[in-house]
């Protein structure tokens, strides 16, 4: 496959596309792109039938290895790869190591292995075990095994160790990769996994990231939220949807955070293209990531929930019990065309499965539209305007 960049600057927003994927000829994926986060091989709450009601485009999928490790044996016997195994063979698949929607515990990597947490408990992977899985799953693109166990508080020693180990793991993965005669393209594709809120996504795009995953809209769904941030440039500066006032009184700029991630870039050799490895792993700033974790001592949850209120409605709130308007008047998704806030509120209150389905349909649609806006904004040099619109407070109409 090829990754073609249309822009030249190395550390600013870039626009490009992936094409000539051997397994899926004719498919072209524009970047910055959104990979649809899949857990256990399926997009949470969406069967294939319902996915077609969200979009008929073959969006690329993000399949974290930790969520499908338990399928290894079955997929090996199946012999046709994870995409086909999960009923999504027409879709481009990317495998990462970890699940971005879940906090990964610290301190469980050792000299030769890293740890993942699949369903049945911690599992240690060395490059060979990891590549066994990759070879069984046959993703179109995957992350090389690496040690990303670093954050703001890490010591220099830990950071160096993680880089050294990652380089070592990468070499071993590359060895296996080349044995299978699949080649790497020239351009280096940058993926940044994590539950980044829209403001942070835009900051990352400005730094030259090409792909993100949809774990953020997933976590929004799981907490009963519906995304209503302005996902396109609205020149009239009027909110494009009827939304609610925030509880927080402070203006947006106080809460807007600078990105605090560090990106460790790694080089790959330059044989001709066929299959890709993404070679980037980033550590995550706590404030930017929605984390519900009992193991972490930070009280960043109140900070992040204030931040997130700019971007979403909380449908569990009693005030929606008799609100018969759609989530967003300007949204064309199935949920907004056919259902009301009151109904969704009822479904969430009664713990009915349809609640998360309707929220997922809306949240994914909204987020995919956001990415279309990002690409358009880069092409038309209006990313600043998009940033302003996205972070704007939405008032009651």
């Amino acid at each position, binding site marked *: 496959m090829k990754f073609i960049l249309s822009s030249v600057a190395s550390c600013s927003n870039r626009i490009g596309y992936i094409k000539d994927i051997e397994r899926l000829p004719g498919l072209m994926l524009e970047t910055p792109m959104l990979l649809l986060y899949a857990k*256990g091989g399926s997009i949470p709450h969406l069967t294939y*039938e319902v996915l077609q009601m969200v979009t008929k485009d073959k969006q690329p999928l993000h399949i974290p290895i930790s969520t499908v490790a338990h399928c290894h044996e*079955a997929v090996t016997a199946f012999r046709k790869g994870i995409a086909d195994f*999960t009923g999504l063979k027409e879709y481009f698949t990317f495998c990462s190591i970890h699940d971005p929607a879940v906090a990964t515990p610290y301190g469980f990597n050792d000299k030769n292995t890293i740890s993942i947490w699949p369903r049945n408990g911690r599992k240690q992977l060395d490059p060979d075990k990891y590549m066994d899985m990759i070879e069984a799953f046959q993703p179109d693109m995957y992350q090389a095994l690496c040690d990303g166990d670093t954050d703001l508080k890490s010591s220099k020693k830990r950071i160096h160790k993680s880089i050294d180990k990652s380089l070592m793991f990468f070499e071993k993965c590359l060895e296996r990769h080349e044995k299978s005669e699949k080649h790497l393209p020239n351009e280096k594709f940058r993926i940044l996994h994590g539950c980044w809120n829209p403001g942070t996504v835009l900051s990352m795009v400005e730094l030259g990231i090409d792909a993100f995953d949809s774990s953020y809209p997933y976590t929004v769904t799981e907490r009963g939220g519906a995304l209503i941030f302005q996902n396109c440039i609205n020149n009239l500066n009027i909110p494009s949807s009827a939304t609610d006032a925030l509880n927080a009184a402070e203006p947006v700029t106080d809460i807007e955070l600078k990105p605090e991630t560090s990106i460790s870039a790694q080089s790959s050799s330059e044989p001709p293209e066929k299959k890709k490895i993404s070679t980037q792993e980033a550590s995550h700033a706590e404030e930017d990531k929605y984390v519900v974790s009992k193991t972490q001592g930070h009280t960043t949850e109140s900070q992040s929930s204030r931040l997130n209120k700019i971007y979403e409605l909380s449908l569990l709130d009693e005030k929606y*019990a*008799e609100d018969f308007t759609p989530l967003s008047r300007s949204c064309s998704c199935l949920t907004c065309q056919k259902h*009301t806030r009151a*109904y969704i509120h*009822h479904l969430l209150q009664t713990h009915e499965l*349809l609640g998360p389905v309707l929220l997922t349909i809306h949240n994914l649609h909204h987020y995919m539209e956001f990415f279309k806006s990002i690409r358009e904004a880069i092409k038309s040099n209006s990313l600043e305007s998009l940033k302003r619109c996205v972070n704007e407070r939405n008032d009651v109409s």
Partner: protein
Amino acid sequence: MPVIGKKTALRFQIKAKCKVSKARSSSMGVIHHEVDTPVFMPVGTQGTLKGLLPDQLEALGCQIMLGNTYHLGTRPGPSVIMKAGGLHKFMNWNRALLTDSGGFQMVSLLKLAEITEEGVKFQSPYNGSEVMLTPERSIEIQNSIGADIIMQLDDVVRTTTTGPRVEEAMLRTTRWLDRCLGAHQNAATQSIFPIVQGGLSKALRTESVKQLIQRDVPGFAIGGLSGGESKNDFWKMVHLTTDLLPEDKPRYLMGVGFAVDLVVCCALGVDMFDCVFPTRTARFGCALTCSGQLNLKQKKYAKDFQPIDEGCDCSTCERYTRAYLHTIVTVEPVACHLLSVHNIAYQLRLMLSIRESIEQQRFPEFVCKFMANIYTNKEYPQWIVDALAAVNIHLDPADPTAEN
């Protein structure tokens, strides 16, 4: 010429009658949709059906589904539903709806439910206060919900109950029917079905029917027969009741839903069924097929790359293998949706086969083939043999029509 008012909310027309058994294929027109009978109605307890969109249900060919008055009357409550414009609008389901009276759930779900002539008295599970569900209140809630067919509040007893309580309940059910009919506000758009009671007593059932048919109602439900009674008693009561009920009105057997029971009861002249079983069992990872149930949690499916059922054309079987489903059942919510779609497709396809075979005058052959598929060793349970024999369908292993 039908009387304007009560009768226009429901039209029932028999299209074909089986010449051998009591089965019939009909068309039931209610305000929101035409319903082909015999029909299986999936149960969408709280105004939703186990994660499925109304769009998906329409794609499956579902024409009518059930909502529970007790649950909906509690959450979101009749006031919210009325403000939404009725349950159809609230859940955006534009086909037919049927609601039960709320009585059964109360008796089975709540402690301290006390039944008096006035109604059912119970303790609210939310704030412990005493609440009374009267026939009038049940109809009032059902009027707010706005389903096409609504049920009277009946005095329902366990099938294992014996003694004078059974007769008391049967007689009270008739009195409550009259109170329901009196309280009903929407006769032009909603039909009330009375419920035949009488436990396992031939005399009481007969008396119940005799009383109920004196009222001007468009259809009848047969209640009190989906509990712990023996199958032998079960079929006899159904058979007796359908013999007594008028032929030109639909008969709804409440709470019956296993495939085998559906087939037998169609032979006995029943037109409508409901059951939580197909959707409830989907939640536990079980899929329904012509040869029985598959529990996809079992390890033997880990490398089984077939669909649930080769012969099934539902969206689940089109794309998903048993092996993949094995990895997600009871873990990912999406597995429940996938199995619900399949199980409902299975039930609806079964009913379609029943209707078609009745219309093509080969219903007895269909029944024999169906039973042979389930009981591959031809060891049919006696109650099935007896029930079918009572309507002239013979499951004789030596019978050539019983061979596949």
